[in-house]
């Protein structure tokens, strides 16, 4: 049974456009506190646009997004982040010529005047001992897997209520991918709600509680992760009809 706290993120009937291109065509999903929810889809499904829309980098042309009951779809990114949504962007996007610690400092930017830096840092180093060892290393010189750790750690510095991860497996060797998803489980175990946007169906559904499948900008499947995993329609959504 998936842990179901109160409704955290309500993404309802959202349409987005990119110039003349209609990308999201009325997408709806919910995320409850304590869960890991996965949004899946192949290329050109619109899944990356989803995270950008949640973060306020793309504005919906229709529909609403509510976080803890409050609408956020018209807010600026800095506001949204302050409210407790932290992103782990596609491709990591760590700041290459800043050290690990400086990157973490940027992660905590919206809380920079609040006390608790040491506690937050320790917590994150506890999850990622590798980062503690190399704290003064420049982020750009790290491997892909290490950068992924850093990107996740950076997002955790604000102690977010909702961690949004965009394609964490992208560009990583299979064994590292397993490690990343292990960490996702561990973070969730500590109480953080996680929204994972992923192309890698099997990995994502092996840690998620629930999932949604996006195809051409619309949700075509949804349900408990275990059921979705066995659903032959998923294969069809990715690989075309039999």
């Amino acid at each position, binding site marked *: 049974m998936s842990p179901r706290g109160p409704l955290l993120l309500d993404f309802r009937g959202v349409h987005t456009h990119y110039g003349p291109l209609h990308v999201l065509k009325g997408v709806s999903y919910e995320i409850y506190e304590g869960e890991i929810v996965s949004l899946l889809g192949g290329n050109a499904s619109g899944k990356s646009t989803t995270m950008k829309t949640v*973060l306020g*980098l793309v504005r919906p042309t229709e529909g609403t997004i509510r976080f803890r009951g409050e609408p956020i779809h018209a807010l*600026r*990114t*800095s506001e949204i*982040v*302050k409210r407790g949504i932290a*992103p782990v*962007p596609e491709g990591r*996007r*760590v*700041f*290459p*010529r*800043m050290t690990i610690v*400086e990157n973490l*400092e*940027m*992660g905590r*930017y*919206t809380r*920079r005047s609040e006390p608790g830096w040491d506690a937050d840092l320790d917590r994150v180093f506890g999850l990622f001992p590798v980062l503690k060892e190399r704290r003064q290393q420049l982020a750009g010189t790290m491997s892909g897997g290490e950068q992924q750790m850093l990107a996740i750690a*950076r997002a955790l510095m604000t102690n977010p209520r909702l961690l949004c991860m965009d394609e964490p497996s992208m560009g990583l060797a299979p064994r590292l991918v397993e490690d990343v998803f292990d960490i996702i489980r561990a973070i969730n175990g500590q109480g953080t709600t996680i929204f994972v946007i992923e192309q890698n169906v099997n990995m994502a559904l092996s840690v998620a509680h629930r999932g949604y499948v996006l195809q051409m900008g619309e949700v075509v499947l949804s349900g408990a992760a275990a059921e979705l995993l066995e659903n032959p329609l998923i294969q069809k959504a990715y690989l075309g009809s039999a």
Partner: protein
Amino acid sequence: MHTLDVLLQQVVNGLALGMMYALLALGFTMVYGIIELINFAHFSVFMTGTFVGLMVLNLMGVTAVSASLQGPALVGTLIALFLATMVATGVLGVLIERICLRPVRHVSGTAPMITTIGVAFILINIMLLTWGPQTQRFPQLLPNWRWGVGGAEISFKQIVLFVVGLLLMLGLWHLVRRTTLGKAMRATAQDADAARMMGIDVDRVVVVTFFLGSALAGAGSLFFGLYYGFTGYYIGYTTGLRAFTSAVLGGIGSIPGAVLGGLLIGLTQSLGGQFLGVKWTDVIIFSILIIVMVLRPNGLLGTRTPQKA
């Protein structure tokens, strides 16, 4: 005079000049680092700074004729002068950014740069119309003490410039490396979208960068006035192109690069002027500019490579 003495003298002169170019190049490179804009107007802000300095001194009752302050009065005057001028030029830079540059910030291509050329022309001509084409005398506040070092001479002015310049650069270094705001600026320069995702207000960072860069240009402008003792509406152009070359040589977008480039160009100007003739220094410096841009666009210390169009 021994060639070695001449050499040493020109090295000293060159380094002093280089400090001024470095200050000017710093502001320019900081803006480029953040929004990838070649801001011609920066050098007109520099020129305007000298006139602001003149006005500030006038207000304080210090004119070209009466300048003979001593001790604490001198120090106080200098501090007031620098503060007032730097704030004024900083504000001017911010106004330019908000009114003229922000509307074209997201236009691709050369439109933003062309806009800065327009702004530069506007500033230059406002100064020309207000003050006239003749050179203006700048009060020689600093006493003309000189000391012999080896076979060369170093003047009090030069020492003051070195010290003040170093202080400003250290201040900038501290800001950029140690403070959260400075780190936010660096983060924005390295990846503006990711910075946004961290909750950094990129627009505000741009404004702060313009303020700081223009304030540094203001400091550089006072260096010019105090060192050379004159100013005119045209100085932004000549000095500006040299500072621009400094930024490019050092690596556009790189702060240490701007300092290194500035010093190198300062040395090039004084040594080149001495051994090849003053009238050819411009050709030398422009040639350096062209060569660097064509052969090594990211300069000595820079990390960005200007992409093929």
